């Protein structure tokens, strides 16, 4: 009997304390970030051909603006070339699932995960996304000298459907 009373008293005192302590806690985590930086691709020169029928402007990236690059107007039928170079990496101990990022450049920006974004203006702000995951982006790195490889992208319209200038199937 005495122990039952003691138990009830303890429960009355302890439970609210435990509940309050638990309530004060919030979800807290330590996230290991194990990154392995791997190979760099050959440099690419991506040439956009304005086939939209109207002029557009190519917007410099943030790092481009910082280093003195400006926006560039491209007339109908005109061309604009931007350098694009990539780095492969993995995240997670022992993981071999690759990620790709854009090395800092004047026009292309990294658009995670695994895409490059280049911004335009044609009356209003527009973007094109380039898919970077295909392994062929990295092939020339081991096969040839690191000379820029030109990729030609005719721009007929602005769409968020990613471009595949390398790798199957549907290039622009």
């Amino acid at each position, binding site marked *: 009997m005495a122990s039952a009373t003691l138990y009830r008293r303890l429960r009355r005192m302890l439970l609210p304390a435990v509940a309050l302590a638990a309530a*004060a806690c919030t979800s807290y985590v*330590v996230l290991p970030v194990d990154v392995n930086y791997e190979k760099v691709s050959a440099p690419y020169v991506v040439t956009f051909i304005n086939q939209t029928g109207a002029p557009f402007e190519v917007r410099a990236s943030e790092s481009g603006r910082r280093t003195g690059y400006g926006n560039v107007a491209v007339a109908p039928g005109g061309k604009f070339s931007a350098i694009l170079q990539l780095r492969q990496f993995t995240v*997670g101990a022992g993981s*071999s699932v690759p*990620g790709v990022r854009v090395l800092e450049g004047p026009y292309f920006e990294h658009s995670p*995960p*695994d895409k490059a974004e280049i911004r335009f203006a044609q009356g209003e702000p527009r973007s094109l996304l380039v898919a970077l995951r295909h392994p062929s982006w990295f092939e020339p790195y081991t096969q040839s000298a690191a000379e820029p490889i030109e990729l030609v992208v005719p721009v007929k319209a602005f769409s*968020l459907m990613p471009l595949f200038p390398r790798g199957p199937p549907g290039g622009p």
Partner: protein
Amino acid sequence: MRYLERIDELRRAELFKRASEFAAIYKPELPTVVILPGGMGSRLQRAFAPFDPDNLPPAVDLYELWASLPHILDGQLRFLAHNEATEERDHYPIVPYGELTSIVKSYDGIFDYFEDKANVVSLGYDWRRAPAKECGYVTRFLELIVEQVKLRYPHAQDPRKRLTLYAHSQGGLVAKLFVNELVDAGEEVSNWFERLVTCCTPFYGTNSHFSRYYTGEPLINIVTGGADAVAKIVATFQGTYCLLPAPRSVLGPRLAKLGLQRYPVRDYDDRGIDCDPFDGFADIAGRYRAEVSRAHLVFARDQYAQLDRDLPPEVAARVFHIRSDANRKQDKRDLELRWKRVDGANYSAAKGNPIYDNMKKGGRGDGTVPLWSAALAGTPDANVFDLVGVEHGGAAEHACSLYILAGLMNGRDVPRGPHVAEADFEYASRTRAAEIVMQLKELPPAAAKARFEALPEDEYRAIVDGWRLSA
């Protein structure tokens, strides 16, 4: 290193950890369900320290910001705001971390239901960011799952062969764009998933999100500096602009297929006028508050074209939609919105909400997503299932939805419906919910959390499901 690159690393680290933990409890003999929660249904964890490109620690300490009650009551949701480059303004990294479990527990019913029937894992995504970008993390996550499962079970079948993507609300937008990318990349879709089942996904927009650009979100306003402050925060999220009603360019050609008589956003005073939220004309653009981003609107408009894009027939056959009409009115009609012509440049929340819908007059929908919005026009009719009486917030774990989901997974011939819910979750009134939040705000954080968790089910759900309205 740039800020978004670091965010990318943190996110991959989280997905790796999640995939490893999933593999540890994986049962090769069972099928797999990957949950994509609704918008605001993914937990967001915030780093204790700001990003420093010269000091990248091998492990990052994170605390729950969304949806940790003490931090919400402390007004910390202001940290969710983005700058123009979609970076956190203060450069304290925020990363998604699976589905919400601490306050909102609307997905645990799925885990309970499939216990011993399927391997279940959720993929958190950043609902502030555009689905067109978030969809890439679905691919990465599935690759990590395969890698980690294969490490433990080298001879097991690829988990993707019996994998169902179960996407609630905004998660369905992420999932559709993931499927698009597989198709565009020339992938064999059957190598990636067996089926995609969406539940209450706003493929053509919501009726609840529009007003947030004017008057914020009622319960959150109370604890985050008021309606104007919340409206300004919402306007910084590139990802949620696609919760506005879809543009005319997308809906126009689909009206008949979606069962609509006309474009569903009308001018408030002259209902003969279409009001496309994405139009750049002065009469439309001028209605928005100054902080609403034209760049984000254009991005969302372009994204809608991709969301609506037809899939090849063999892929469309793998896509299923569950949609709900929760409206109890007898006299049903198409859900429409009306938009008052206001002077956006000089607008403040005190002037009231200029967006109206006809939910109370019988507009069909689940409270957040109009019925016409919850199935893709290109999906075969036989793959669309109707619910009656199920509200948006708890729909993913509702018994009717799980019955349909399990039926599809088991190869049963599931009737299209309508499946009438015998009972939906009980909800207290919105007024009562606001009253409770006001009371919680006055309490110390620990006491507020304890009080909150002791709330009766109807009051609890009125608050947490309310927070996931865009969900």
